[in-house]
């Protein structure tokens, strides 16, 4: 619930925007002029009429007091959610310049919707309406068994294909192109193993990924083989690892276990998209527990995921962890108050400790690409040459021939105290966030949160030395 009378900051409002264009469009509408008959109950309901270029003004209502997160309604034809009018209205409200007075009675057109929502929300909270266990546990068990059988068949087939590939040699993979992989991926979809399908599809992209692809292809094939074997022998795995395998294969996981209430700082929020799905990743840091947690939210192709949280602010909320050893993913539960600014930030570590943490996390989940860490007092520096990017290979690194493509612009985060550094991941080097990070540093040390993995470090948020504000690098 939002505390009565507490207005949000513009940052909090803008964090609700589904994408950058909406944020911009919303900002433009966040001025008093075109709004009329605006008001707020002071308990979270905000409404107003927006005079656009049409003859009839749009009716915009927002209910930010809902336990499940803000809800919006607007008579405009936009399919963005929230639309720019809802954002604009909230910005005017946040501006506290008197355009949206508190303590008003909603007009009829707003009252109707609000009343309906409140009634639904009450109904949801009553015990009778909580989703109960499936009506027929026996049927559910049979369905699960059936699916496991299909996945087993899929994994077995995949093992055969990998075996064939290595028997004939991966050199042919470069010529085969996507076709073969796409077909195999489709077979895995049929086998109801979307996790396997996704990995297979990624295999298809490796041969065209530049120098060093044969090593990467062998590595990815080996890890896929490891996952197949993990599934086929899951009854012999420890519980945690078995859960990890199930979720990596693509079985839906459930958030379980006791909810953890904490003040969660939102460290980063970023989207990745393929042709089917937009995935939003939100990193949280619990200031009491010191725990780092990941929220995932999905949107169908081209649509923004529903969940959006304000980077840099802290939520007083409950989260529930997912099953699986070393699993960081959580589900957001009840929020107890509106997000508030905080000066707390995760404690940072040295580069050596960062790679060690990634290494340790691989014990619980060998398929991990990266692990969230915060580096303290590092300085972005330009790597001298390709050798620096290689230097991080372990003592056992027998892949001496591996050469990650070194662009002239390869950067690292250097620790001036220990003289060690983490190279930035190649994907991070081409993003605008890199220059934001360099500008923020100005050659002086700062604290950087990001994902540390075998391809290097991907910076996601940073804090300059002298101020507590989180700067997003996504």
């Amino acid at each position, binding site marked *: 619930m939002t505390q009565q009378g507490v207005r949000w900051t513009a940052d909090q409002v803008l964090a609700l925007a589904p994408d950058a264009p909406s944020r911009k469009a919303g900002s433009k509408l966040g001025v008093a002029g075109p709004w009329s008959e605006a008001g707020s109950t002071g308990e979270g309901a905000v409404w107003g009429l927006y005079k656009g*270029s049409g003859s009839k003004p749009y009716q915009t209502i927002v209910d930010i007091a809902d336990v499940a997160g803000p809800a919006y309604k607007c008579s405009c034809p936009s399919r963005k959610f929230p639309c720019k009018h809802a954002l604009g209205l909230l910005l005017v409200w946040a501006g506290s310049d008197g355009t949206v007075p508190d303590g008003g009675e909603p007009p009829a057109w707003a009252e109707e919707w609000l009343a309906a929502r409140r009634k639904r929300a009450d109904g949801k909270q009553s015990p009778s309406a909580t989703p109960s266990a499936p009506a027929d546990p026996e049927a559910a068990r049979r369905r699960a068994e059936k699916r496991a059988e299909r996945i087993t068949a899929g994994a077995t087939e995949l093992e055969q294909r990998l075996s064939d590939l290595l028997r004939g*040699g991966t050199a042919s993979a470069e010529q085969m192109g996507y076709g073969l992989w796409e077909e195999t991926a489709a077979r895995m979809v049929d086998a109801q193993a979307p996790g396997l399908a996704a990995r297979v599809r990624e295999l298809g992209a490796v041969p065209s990924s530049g120098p060093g692809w044969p090593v990467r*292809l062998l590595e990815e094939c080996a890890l896929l083989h490891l996952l197949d074997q993990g599934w086929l022998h899951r009854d012999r795995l420890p519980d945690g690892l078995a859960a990890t395998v199930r979720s990596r294969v693509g079985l839906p996981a459930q958030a379980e276990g006791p909810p953890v209430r904490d003040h969660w700082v939102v460290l980063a929020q970023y989207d990745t998209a393929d042709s089917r799905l937009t995935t939003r990743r939100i990193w949280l840091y619990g200031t009491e527990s010191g725990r780092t947690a990941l929220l995932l939210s999905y949107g169908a192709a081209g649509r923004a995921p529903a969940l959006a949280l304000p980077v840099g602010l802290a939520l007083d909320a409950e989260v529930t962890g997912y099953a699986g050893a070393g699993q960081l993913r959580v589900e957001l539960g009840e929020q107890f108050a509106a997000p508030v600014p905080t000066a707390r930030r995760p404690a940072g570590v040295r580069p050596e400790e960062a790679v060690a943490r990634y290494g340790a996390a691989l014990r619980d989940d060998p398929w991990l690409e990266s692990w969230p860490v915060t580096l303290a007092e590092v300085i972005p520096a330009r790597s001298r040459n390709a050798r620096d*990017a290689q230097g991080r290979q372990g003592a056992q690194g027998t892949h001496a021939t591996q050469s990650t493509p070194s662009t002239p612009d390869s950067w690292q985060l250097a620790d001036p105290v220990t003289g060690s550094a983490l190279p930035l991941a190649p994907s991070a080097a081409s993003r605008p966030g890199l220059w934001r990070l360099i*500008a923020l540093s100005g050659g002086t040390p700062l604290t950087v949160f990001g994902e540390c993995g075998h391809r290097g470090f991907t910076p996601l948020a940073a804090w300059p030395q002298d101020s507590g504000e989180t700067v997003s690098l996504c």
Partner: protein
Amino acid sequence: MVTTALLGTDRRALPASVHTPGKEAPIALLDAAALQTVRRRAGLRAAPAAALPEPAAGDPRPPLPPAARRRLATLLTDQPGTGGGGRRGAAPDLMELLPQWLALANARGYGAPPELLPALLNAARGRTDLRPQALTFAGPRALWLARLNPDWKFALRATPGGGVTLPSADDAPEVQRLWEEGLFAERVALLTALRAHHAGTALDLLVSTWSTERAEDRLMFLDSLRTGLSSVDEPFLEQALTDRSRNVRATAAELLSALPDSALAGRMSTRAASCVAVDHTSDTPTLTVEAPHECDAGMERDGVTPKPPAGRGERSWWLGQLVEAAPLTTWQPRLGNRTPAEIVALPVADDWRSELHAAWCRAAVRQRDVAWSRALLGTPASPDAAGPGAVSLAERAKLLASLPAAERADWVAGFIAAHGLSEAFQLLGVCAVPWAEPLGRAVVDSLNIARDAGSYPWSFSGVMGLAERCLDPSEAVRLEALTAIPDEPENASPGAGGYWSEAFQRLVTTLRLRAAIRDELPPP
């Protein structure tokens, strides 16, 4: 192992270390590779640190208030081409507000937030008109960044000295060292900086090495004397009149002519005065002009260019240069102690009027002479003012610039009231922002008249755009009434009323945004 994988286990035997009895070769290979992969990843170590960059110079300016920082971030995300708005629609064009935002932030002395520097540099890269303001605001750290990213090289070129910290003017040995050893850009920066407060010191510095400088450099150095120009500089400039380089000679002559008491100004005054006289023999006193018959060596030495551009007569070309370079104080005693206004009003014989008035205009602009500027501008309502009279609109705009701000605004308001908006664009550009009330009202009234006349708003998009940038935000209240869709008059262009409503809406919203911007940037 990779080689075996590439060629295939059918063609190449497994390495002994990988071979496992009872396991098919491909599976054994995959098992070993999986182990190796996870082991490699788990065993990663940190790399040795590269050479650390030099820290950026500190920025002593106070940081932006949070609201202003958010506003700047929004303005910077509104790149042209996104949103597809163009000059249509009711939403404001944020990119157009950026120059104003920067000017205000610079006037208030705020420093840029480091994390926005990349976006700021990218904006300045795409728009050269933004560069001076953007780079001033961006401060020393932007130059530090520009050295790291070739995309932003322009920032180093655009900043004198490439952002090198200049020694304090009191630090004589350091000043001398930089002057003698510095790069060209650093020396220009040093000279320009010194000139603003210690004009004499700068001159001494220049004189000390003058004879050894290259011609192009001499020209640039000479140009820096414009700041703080005084009679102290005259002996040096007189000497530069004999320079080997023609461009240097011409610049020296121009600078001298801007010193009304200089010997050169006196010589030009004598020459010009001999060409213009009042003829009392006709019914009304009339100006007669006798253009020079030759360009002698003395004239040439004083900076007169002997060869006219194609299509111009030699004698009128010489006359123009003499009158332009002669101090305007020449004319009152010479022409019967008349005021500038009376002189300008005199008829001119033999079609010399436009030649003579144009040269006086250039002189008035160069010497920033208010009385002459006012006289040459005339009254805004005169029919001549809008037509192709003796003084073109471009020249009028320059003359206006020397008048006090309030008088400038009144003159342009009068011009708009008499001649409408279509010719006023150039003149509006030299008016102080925000527009004074009478000027703003004249513009809004004219837009209102244009709307009632039934034309489309985009015929006035230039003025509309200027109004968005220059109207006083407090006018928003008065404009509110214009955002309604009017009844269309019979002869109106179809749908024009709706477009006008949209255009006025954008104007109002933009003005409100500007008011918000102003409130967000209080004096620190």
